[in-house]
């Protein structure tokens, strides 16, 4: 049995686990369900780690049901496990395991017969995400996309006892489903043009036509579904609302990997389908996605700074980082992909840890409101507090965290394309890091002045109910161990040379269309069957420039946080004038921006339509047939 044969197990094993848990939940006690779920998730991690190891020998390809094509033409579905795909699946399984461990004794006792439901849904979520990461068939990708979507809607609204606003879950469901239908329309258009569903096959058939309106419309429609999940502005409005509602372990997964899968999907679809002749020219892709990525990163950072509901704050920080990931991908270079992959992995650990720590606050104090929590979590200073600060610094890009290394590699690649792009990286990661740092200082130490707890008509995070109704108890050990492990994981990613070396090769493979076509048995005509072996560039780990920029954004973050905390108390005319300026900027620019985030379904839908229209106009002007 070869590794390639085992690829479908990345989907089948969690599916079987979900079924087992749904059935065993009727018989087993609570503890039994938790143990079973954790064991199953650990098995998935082992499986994917094994596949990751085998993928160093080359891309693993599996034709499900042995429907291997003859003469390049087949009827089956292919799974393609290249290093980026398998690496992402490995990240998914690790985060699933973390979320399940974190959720030990997390919810109030579920009703008998439903004990297995939550872990079963989590494992189904895992199956959907792994399937999406590995599939090489466009319609199959849609199916797994819908699987992870449908399960995510249910998980977001899972905690029905809880009186928190639920419309976030519904908006999430409606908007993401609508976007998925847009994708399916695009898939149908591509099928009409090429008569194929396999990604590589479609890409090969596009070469016979010119890039006309049909290609542009199909590309934009397919991209819509992916980028709505990837929360690109103006498709991002659903994300903070969903995160404010979802139970903490679900937030860890949504922010940690699901959103990033949208960006991954966009990159995969571009390279395998549209990067060849008859597709979308590189300059169009680069111009459009870089600009939307920059806008998304800045918007997310500004909105993050404004929040006091900590989960919403972290959600906006995810939006900001996704903008940076989009920029990294849109450079269309192997270095950009390598850097982004590392950045995504590092960010997943840090962001999941921060959500986990927010869950501790919710558990102990029944609130996730920065203002009302002011100084109330002093007793957690030495455990959760330190980790929260570390998470904030890692978010800002402090070396040697994985986020710092990923940011350094990506911004270096970005700087080679446009000189000012690294400034965006430094600025936005500093702002999001500063926001979290500000929160940590206020909540855990009571630093700065007491914020005005009633200011602003906005989403507040107080009046929440703890997810577990036993406020007197000590913090359960898994709720602190899991974030510690996640932060350590992110640190290891930046310290060890192994992941960077692997991902450097992976980035080259990912951006090579010829290698992908050859792997699925579609060697491009007039080229040899084996991919042209590109010289392996020596992996770049930490450079002086990267460390300097990482330190710069960390210092900037600390300075911004200090300004927010102690600025209002400063005396003197200059300080007074600066405060006036800040207030004016907030009034003129930020307030209208905030009012756009109305959380209404109708507004969400209209922004979706507007985004599609903007992308259509942008691509059709840039793509000349």
């Amino acid at each position, binding site marked *: 049995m070869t590794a390639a*044969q085992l690829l479908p197990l990345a989907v089948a094993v969690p599916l079987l686990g979900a079924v087992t848990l749904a059935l065993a939940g009727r018989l087993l006690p609570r503890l039994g369900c938790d143990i079973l779920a954790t064991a199953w998730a650990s098995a998935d991690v082992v499986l994917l780690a094994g596949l990751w190891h085998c993928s160093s020998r080359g891309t693993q390809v599996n*034709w499900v049901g042995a429907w291997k094509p003859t003469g390049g033409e087949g009827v089956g579905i292919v799974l393609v496990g290249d290093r980026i795909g398998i690496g992402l699946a490995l990240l998914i399984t690790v985060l699933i395991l973390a979320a399940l461990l974190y959720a030990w004794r997390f919810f109030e006792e579920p009703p008998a017969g*439903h004990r297995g439901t939550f872990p079963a849904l989590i494992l189904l979520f895992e199956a959907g995400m792994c399937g999406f990461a590995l599939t090489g068939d466009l319609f199959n990708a849609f199916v797994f996309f819908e699987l992870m979507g449908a*399960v995510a809607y249910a998980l977001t609204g899972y905690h029905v006892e809880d009186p928190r606003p639920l419309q976030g879950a519904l908006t999430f469901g409606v908007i993401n489903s609508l976007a998925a239908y847009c994708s399916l329309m695009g898939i149908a*258009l591509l099928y009409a043009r090429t008569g194929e569903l396999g990604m590589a096959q479609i890409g090969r058939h596009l070469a016979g036509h010119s890039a006309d309106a049909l290609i542009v419309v199909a590309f934009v429609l397919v991209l819509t579904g992916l980028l709505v999940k990837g929360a690109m502005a103006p498709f991002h409005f659903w994300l903070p609302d969903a995160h404010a509602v979802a139970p903490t372990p679900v937030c860890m997964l949504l922010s940690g990997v699901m959103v990033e899968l949208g960006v991954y999907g966009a990159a995969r679809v571009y390279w395998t389908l549209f990067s060849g002749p008859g597709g979308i020219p590189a300059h169009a892709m680069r111009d459009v996605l870089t600009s939307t990525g920059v806008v998304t990163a800045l918007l997310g950072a500004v909105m993050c700074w404004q929040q006091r509901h900590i989960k919403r704050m972290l959600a906006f920080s995810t939006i900001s980082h996704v903008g940076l990931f989009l920029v990294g991908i849109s450079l269309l270079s192997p270095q950009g992909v390598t850097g982004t992959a590392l950045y995504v992995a590092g960010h997943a650990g840090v962001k999941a840890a921060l959500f986990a720590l927010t869950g501790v606050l919710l558990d102990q104090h029944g609130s996730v409101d920065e203002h009302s929590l002011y100084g109330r979590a002093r007793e957690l200073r030495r455990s959760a507090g330190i980790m929260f600060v570390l998470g904030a610094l890692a978010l800002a890009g402090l070396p040697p965290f994985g986020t710092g290394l990923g940011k350094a590699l990506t911004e270096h690649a970005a700087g080679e394309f446009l000189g000012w792009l690294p400034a965006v990286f430094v600025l936005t990661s500093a702002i999001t890091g500063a926001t979290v740092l500000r929160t940590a200082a206020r909540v855990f130490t009571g630093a700065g002045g007491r914020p005005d707890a009633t200011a602003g008509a906005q989403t507040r995070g107080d009046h929440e109910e703890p997810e577990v109704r036993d406020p007197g108890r000590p913090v359960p050990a898994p709720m602190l161990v899991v974030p510690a492990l996640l932060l350590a994981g992110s640190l290891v990613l930046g310290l060890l040379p192994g992941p960077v070396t692997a991902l450097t090769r992976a980035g080259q493979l990912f951006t090579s269309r010829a290698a992908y076509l050859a792997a699925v048995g579609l060697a491009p005509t007039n080229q040899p069957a084996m991919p042209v072996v590109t010289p392996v560039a020596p992996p770049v780990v930490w450079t002086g420039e990267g460390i300097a920029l990482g330190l710069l954004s960390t210092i900037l973050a600390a300075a911004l946080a200090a300004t927010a905390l102690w600025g209002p108390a400063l005396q003197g005319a200059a300080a007074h004038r600066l405060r006036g300026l800040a207030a004016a900027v907030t009034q003129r620019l930020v307030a209208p921006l905030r009012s756009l985030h*109305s959380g209404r379904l109708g507004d969400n839908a209209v922004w979706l339509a507007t985004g599609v229209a903007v992308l259509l106009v942008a691509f059709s002007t840039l793509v000349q047939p």
Partner: protein
Amino acid sequence: MSRTARIRLFWGAAAVIAALYTMACLRLPHFGTAVHPYGDRAVAATLRQRTANTISSINFDQRAFDTLGEESILFGAVLGATALLRRTSHDHNTRPRPVRVLPSTRLFGALLLPVALLTGIYIVAHGQLSPGGGFQGGVVLATALHLAYVAADYRALQRIRPRELLDQADAVAAGAFTVLGLAGLVAGVAYLQNVLPLGTFNTLSSGGLVPVINAAVGIEVASGVIVVLAYFLDQTLFATGPAGGAFRKKAER
């Protein structure tokens, strides 16, 4: 954003989308084109697999992995809907009043119920031969059962609808699909490979693994739809919890 602004923005976006979509449609092959490369290959493969209904062969054999994902969506949706609609401690339950049913309605339902159930089973069983299959038959089976609700009353439906059992049947059928796929791996070939003998074309046992997966899908769809409908019916007929306003108030205290 005000409502008018929102609608204006929509019209602007819709105009752009409509214009470009129309241009795209003009570049598509004309309606009824004779060029369907994938379709032709799928038909050829179907006949090689001795399956009469091409759709079943694609869904349960050639692209069975899609259907595996699809059935998982169904399984997840059933799990999710039951989790969302589960009784919470805040709900107080009342019993529904038995409704008087006209004798003619009762007779109509009693006669139609077995006919509809048989039709459902027939559609599932002949999935690889004639139009229909696990999914369509499953839906017919599920709706057929609810004729009992029309014919008698809710308590009659509850008696013939063992929800616990159906809940488990749904999970077992979803698991069966995954396990059937593993059979290929155990046999040393590919996941979801059609390892059973293909049988004679156009008979009930033809198509190898197709009728087996078809049956699993039929059971899953029928029990899944019944369970979901059961939870919705319960919400409508039983759960008359405290009024929303009062609940909200209680929560904010």
